[in-house]
């Protein structure tokens, strides 16, 4: 079977969960081949990629791949699409992943699908559009299918692959090196998982009432090992940083469990979380639209309900 290239997402040498999901998905459609772009691959990372089915691991260790914005990774993938005669390319549907996919599509004269929540035979993708109101099947008509898949679209399942390493030397054009990364500024986020990747997300909205009160949301998140999100009302009020906003103009999350506390559930918010598998809502207003989505809802004051829930979670761990 032909190779399906999976661009590896990693943080300081550690392979991110979404990559394991993409490898799991790639196994059902062809031969998974992981693509590591940049320096710093470790023996642990290689073992992890093989454990989840990578038959091949392309290692392009050049620092140029990460010292310039987006374009070098698209050039690397374009080179591999040709040399490996790849059947498809899968990337994580993060903001940067989608930018890479877009540039790669132009370079390889191929169709591209973004925000797939499933991928089946013939690379037919499932998408959820218009704030979750419509389900779509789409496919690429020309070239090598390039698909950006949302984190949490499939559960990662280990199944050992050969993990044969192949070093790749990439020749970057000057155009690909046009935008330099001068500095990476890492902001303290503690030990919480990343919002778009987290299996569980606990979000707070207008009902939280203040920046200080977000500690209630954080407490529940930490008890569950979850990421913290916020509605636009909460970020607009300055109670929580903007990068944690879930919704149409913020992040899209698709976790196993989404807990919405003090969030009414306007369409703009639903657009960012409606594909969550299980939804729990806590809100004072029994008419809040979020309850239409909820698998479980508590009509009550989040300042009472959430701390009690946190205590119960900690007790039952």
């Amino acid at each position, binding site marked *: 079977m032909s190779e399906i290239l999976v661009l590896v997402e990693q943080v300081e040498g550690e392979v991110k969960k979404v990559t394991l999901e993409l490898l799991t998905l790639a196994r059902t459609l062809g031969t998974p081949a992981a693509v590591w772009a940049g320096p710093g691959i470790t023996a642990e990372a290689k073992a992890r990629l093989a454990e989840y089915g990578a038959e091949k691991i392309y290692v392009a260790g050049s620092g140029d791949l990460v010292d310039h914005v987006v374009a070098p990774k698209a050039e690397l993938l374009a080179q591999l699409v040709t040399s490996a005669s790849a059947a498809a390319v899968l990337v994580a549907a993060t903001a940067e992943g989608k930018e890479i996919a877009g*540039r790669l*599509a132009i370079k390889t004269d191929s169709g591209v699908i*973004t925000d797939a929540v499933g991928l089946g035979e013939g690379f037919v993708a499932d998408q959820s559009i218009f704030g979750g109101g419509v389900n779509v099947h789409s496919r690429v*008509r020309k070239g090598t299918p390039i698909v950006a898949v949302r984190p949490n679209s499939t559960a990662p399942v280990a199944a050992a692959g050969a993990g044969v390493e192949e070093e790749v030397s990439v020749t970057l054009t000057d155009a690909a090196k046009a935008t330099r990364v*001068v500095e990476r500024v890492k902001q303290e986020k503690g030990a919480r998982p990343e919002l778009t990747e987290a299996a569980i997300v606990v979000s707070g909205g207008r009902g939280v009432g203040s920046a200080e009160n977000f500690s209630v949301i954080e407490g529940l998140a930490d008890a569950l090992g979850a990421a913290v999100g916020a509605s636009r009302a909460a970020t607009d009020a300055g109670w929580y940083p903007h990068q944690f906003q879930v919704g149409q103009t913020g992040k899209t999350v698709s976790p196993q469990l989404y807990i919405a506390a003090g969030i009414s559930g306007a369409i703009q918010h639903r657009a960012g979380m409606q594909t969550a598998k299980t939804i*729990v809502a806590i809100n004072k207003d029994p008419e809040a639209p979020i309850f239409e989505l*909820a698998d*479980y809802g508590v009509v009550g004051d989040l300042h009472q309900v959430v701390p*009690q829930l946190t205590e119960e979670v900690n007790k039952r761990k």
Partner: protein
Amino acid sequence: MNIVVCVKQVPDTATERKLRSEDNTLDRDAADGVVNELDEYAVEEALKLKEAHGGEVTVLTMGPGKATETIRKALAMGADKAVHLSDDALRGSDALSTSYAMAQVLKKIGFDLVVLGSESTDARTGMLPAMLAERLGTPQLTLANKVEVEGSTIRVQRLADYGYDRIEATLPAVVSVVEKINEPRYPSFKGIMAAKKKPVETLAIGDASIDPGQVGLAAAWSEVVDFAPAPPRAAGTIVKDEGDGGANAADFLASKKFI
């Protein structure tokens, strides 16, 4: 500085959005058209850069006739003139075609800086700014929450999952902006009146050397095979908190093996 700000008219999120059953494309007549929200931040950033460095702000949009409403809004905010790429042959264009067509117009009209919102609220692919940079062969400085220009150098703070990257390049360049980079101004009455007199040039594909074989639904590199309304979620259990709401929710989480 010659700044081009790209804006898109999108169906209002607050109204019901539909695909057309005959060709699976967005039904742009079914819903009210509004300016894509993130594009308002792009217009504001373009105006601020003009105010700081001089030059001119040109609005560029691709879309059907009614997209002129969106152009007028950007002009009312303070942009100087507009170019409207409008041609029936463009209907159903995907991101590859759209980036190609817009790049052709940008090459024709020239620019030092192209500014866009980082994604639209309808298709939400988030790819167009990067694809324009690819097509134009110019530096990509996207997902900006801060933009600075000094001479021919442009510096941007690019949002990342871990914080942000400070990135830089030499003009001409393509920039996309995220929400909160600024506070978009409201058009004043004077601005609205002035906008009516500002020049809007309408281009058909032939005017921008756009190959008709590269645009429109027939040329699309990807397609919607079929679509259906999302099945309603099964009605959940809603309880009223009687002092044990948290414990009840914990029971539910335990039943689903989350704890």
